[in-house]
């Protein structure tokens, strides 16, 4: 393998492992690395000829670093892309090499990412790909718990569990998760209440202060009168089932059927 590649990868690693990595430098380095790897033919090599495990491990490590970098930079698009790039190295190419330490961390982050976006279907697909034994691993287990609580609607539970994420890197996703939960709650309260007083609202929305609630009300065009929050239930009448009409029609069909027989 090329000396230059090694050098590049080392530099990349160094950059990423810094606490506040430089976004532009990192991305530039990553692209450079990828191009170099592509030229070397070790980025997604064809399956026709024997592969060198060393190369695979090398590429995998670089791609793993790229994932971590994207998390650190909080660049979610990049994150999604990098995860799907590294995945073949866990499942297809990975069958022949030693498992990476970071594998479960990265897959776990991916799961949490999907949960935070409420992409439950994909979440389960990804989950199926992970070996059953690994479910007890803290990285994965955390996600399973979150998903369970989410299903139960136990948002408070999530709140608590999220206070202790298995890795620092998870915090990005945890905060995103909280946001999406908040959205869910907002959606529900909108339907269930006509008005709420601000304090209850604050607790319900898991917000820090009443100010936050007020801001929220502003963005959603909710009125606040006398410390009370009034929801605008615009789409109230839309989905009323035309009961009488349906009943009448069904009886009509039954009659017709009777006649035919």
């Amino acid at each position, binding site marked *: 393998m090329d000396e230059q590649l090694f050098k590049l990868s080392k530099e990349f690693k160094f950059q990423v492992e810094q606490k506040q990595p430089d976004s532009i430098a990192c991305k530039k380095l990553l692209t450079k690395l990828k191009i170099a790897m592509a030229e070397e033919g070790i980025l997604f090599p064809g*399956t026709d000829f024997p*592969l060198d495990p060393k190369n695979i491990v090398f590429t995998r490590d670089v791609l793993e670093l790229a994932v971590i970098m994207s998390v650190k930079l909080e660049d979610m698009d990049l994150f999604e892309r*990098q995860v799907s790039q590294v995945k073949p190295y866990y499942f297809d190419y990975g069958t022949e090499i030693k498992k990476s330490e970071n594998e479960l961390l990265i897959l776990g982050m991916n799961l949490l990412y999907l949960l935070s976006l409420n992409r439950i279907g994909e979440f389960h697909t990804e989950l199926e790909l992970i070996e059953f034994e690994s479910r007890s691993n803290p990285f994965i287990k955390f996600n399973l718990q979150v998903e369970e609580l989410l299903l139960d609607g136990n948002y408070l539970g999530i709140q608590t569990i999220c206070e202790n994420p298995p890795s620092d890197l998870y915090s990005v996703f945890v905060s995103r998760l909280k946001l999406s939960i908040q959205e869910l709650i907002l959606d529900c309260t909108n339907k269930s209440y006509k008005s709420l007083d601000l304090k209850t609202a604050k607790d319900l929305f898991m917000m820090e202060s009443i100010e936050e609630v007020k801001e929220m009300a502003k963005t959603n065009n909710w009125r606040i009168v006398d410390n009370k929050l009034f929801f605008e239930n615009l789409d109230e009448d839309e989905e009323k089932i035309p009961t009488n009409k349906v009943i009448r029609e069904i009886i009509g069909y039954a009659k017709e059927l009777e006649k035919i027989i």
Partner: protein
Amino acid sequence: MSVVLSTASGIIALLDEPDNDLKTYALRKLDSLVDQFWAEISDSIGKIEALYEDEEFPSRTLAAIVASKVYYHLGFLDDSLLFALGAGQLFDVSQRDEFTRTLISKSFNDYIEKRSVITEEEHKLKLKKQEEEKNKTKTIFEEEEEDSELENMLIDSDEDSEQDEGLYETKNEKITLEKTESEVIDPRLEKIINSVFRRCFLEKEFKEALGIAIEARRIDIIKEIIEMVDKTDEMLTYCLTIARKYIQSRWYRQEVLTMLLEIYESRPELDYINICDILLFLNDAERLSEILNDLLLDESTESHLNACQIGFDLYENASQHFLNELVLLLPDPIPVNKPVEKDGIVAEYTPREQKLLVYNKKMDQIKSILSGRTTINLHLQFLNRNNKTDLQNLLRLKEKTDSRHSLLTSMIVMSHGLISCGTTSDVFLRENLGWLANISNWAKFCSTASLGLIHKGHLDKAFTILEPYLPHGSGGSSPYSEGGSLYALGLINTKHGEEVTPFLLEALKNCQRNNIIQHGACLGIGLSSMAVGDMQTYEELRDVLYNDDAVAGEAAGIAMGLLMLGTGNSKAIQEMWNYAHQTEHEKIIRGVSVGMSLIMYGKEQEAEGLIEQLSSDKDSILRYGAMFTIAMAYAGTSNEKALRKLLHVAVSDVNDDVRRAAVIAIGFLLFKEPNQVPKTLSLLAKSYNNSVRFGAAMALGITCAGTANKDALELLEPLTKDLNNIVRQGALIATGMVLMQFNEKQEPKVSKIKDQFYEIVSDKYEHKMTKMGAILGAGLIDAGGRNVTISMQTTTGENDMKAIVGLAIFSQYWFWHPLTYFISLAFQPTALIGLNKDLNMPKFKVKSNAKPSLFAYPNPLVEKKKVEKKVETAVLSVTKKEQRRQEEKAEQKKNNEEDNSQMDSEEIDEKKKIEEEKENEEEKEKEKEKEKEKEKEKEKEKEKEKEGKEKEKEEKEEEEEEEILENPTRITLDQRKYITFDVDPRYKPIKESAKFGIVMLLDTKPDEDEELIEIEFDTTEKKEEEKEPEPPEPFEYFSD
């Protein structure tokens, strides 16, 4: 270590990378994985398309090929092709994988489609330009007479025509608009097509390339291919056949042929026969006459023979109009002064004059050939000489027919006419005078007309034969026989009416408006001056039509059609169309609408206007005519659009007659591919509708005539037992047609169907319509002395106009029985006639490489003994037992015989003697048993056959796998492929491919004396002595 990828998502993710190199890398990876992961990739097809469209992106073509492959897997071939075109070099046409092959075939389809649209438009524009130029020079009055594609669409009144014109123009505008939008061929597509051609050339797949080039209308490529191939001869013939058979667009066909002609002419050794073939197709009489003249000027025998052969071929294939033109163009004989005798010295011609004399003689010969007289005469001689009519069959039917029944009696006469068509043998009629005396009215008309059938083609003697019946002005015999004789005159002189037409016209004028005579005369004129297009005659016929007499008007309508056959004359169409709407007689409307269809014969697209008008008329008879117009205009073209229309009408029209006509018309369209017809008609033959079933039977009959097509027979068999008697009738007639010229050895069903005919006629309770079918069927199966077949194409595969028209009018027999005779126009003698340079038949042999019995004439039915008529005696059970035993024995014997057929001749002789002895005994014992006798008859027949075979064996002991045939001989359609010319030591055919028809023979030993075959007409000579008996007296008819 090898790895199986389970997902391409990683690579797809690379597409989102900002860097172009990475994207390219990803695309390259995807390209190799697309066959496996296309489903996954299709989710991100948008990204790939965006890359293709991004003009900054360096690997756009790569994106295109990936997109193309994904779309291919998704089944969106249009999109796939679009991207493949964008892929440029990356779309490699030399690849053999499925993707490439599918796309190439797709691109060919697209290309061909577009090319044909574009070329048609170009042609139309060209025509329009020509039209405009013409119009500039012409005055307005002339314009009306102009006979063009446009005019044909404007048949109705003037107002309509203006509308039509308007429509036409808007259509044209639309076309040009479209052209600017979508119909311009993508140059990239053309590039691909061209590269495929190059590849074909490299791999020597010339025939494939040629086929595609012809379809894609790339004349340049066709030319290139032909010039490139070394075996040009083969390629040229191949191209010629394709061009003639499969190119449907007329002008394009002509263009291809013109190109072929150029190639043929540029070759050092001129292939006159093929050149003339093309010239005929291009209707270029002028060039053709030049070539003929050149050949005649050449002194070698070979060119002389070539000229004669071309002449015969021309007569067979060309239209009357073309032949007339050709004869006019040929130079007149150059006058040669007779040398003057001087002082007792016998003056001799100068060498130059001698040459001229020879040339003149040759020219006369050619003209006579082109006029058709030679061919007709030769066929007549052949039919007369090889007549194998078995009247016993007919007598058997006659005996079972109630002579008081006028329909069936006249059917017997018709059947006889068909059987002896062209044989000049009227023994049957003469022997059954008493019986004929019963005939009256229209039956008499038919029986007199049947004389015309019997003497069909006997041009010289037409008047002599019919003399006693022809109208003489002074009252005379009944109008029915007079009318019939005029019809007969037409039948004899079909297409050769130079002499008889004036007589017929005279008769038409002098008949004092007797509608029966008018009827006969009109039909006669129609036949004799078929396709002449003479306006004066036309007006005479039109006057008859305008008299509004149902009987005469119907005939006049048909006759007008025959006279104007294939001219597309818009004036005639206009007048007939108008009259059809004025008159109230259904017969006239029918005659006229059939007439109109005849005028449109072979006009293809040009007839669309008329077809449209007729088929949307509310009068069902005119719609009926529309179906026949389609049949005539597109005869033999298998045109898909027309076919679809017919099928639609066949199942949707409210009128049964129209539906029947539509089904029959399908037969006319498809007759060149008889094997396909049963498949097309199989569902219609099982229709609930009687008329549709009848139509299907007829269509099968006319298309598969003389082929014994297995599928056709299978479809017809249940129809002969149909519940409806008319359907049975049609099926019986059709079966007769299909089995023409077949013997039991080739098709075992023959004997079965013959027995069925007999049974039906003798069955007391059978409906007379079915009986009629059986009698006609029996006539057709043995028609023309068993020496003719029905075919709508000539030996070279051209449409035989006469035959097509004959069958079309024959199918009107449903309404008017005398029209049955028109079927004789479709009779083609299946002869091989060898001729020397003087147009005489020398003794000449050909070899048929097949067992003689396979193509032998059927054995004649042995006349039943009179014993049969004895009162049947009571049969005791003992005798019955005995009888059964005997039968069993006989059967055993039969089996033994069959087993032993390979035995030595000696053994057979011995055995035969024993058999004969036994037989004699048996005969004495059991004279009375009818069945027994039949059994014996069969045995005898068998023995006869054996004897015949033995004789042959003695003649040539080595093989019996072949047969030597003497000139002139019958060669059935199936036999053709067994014919070789290697046995005759002296004569060789001038045209190698000719295995039937009239063949000019090259004499390899010109110095020796030639042995010629003498032909004499027994019957005609006798006739002159005996003369025809007086026409039978009118007979009072009592209905039962």
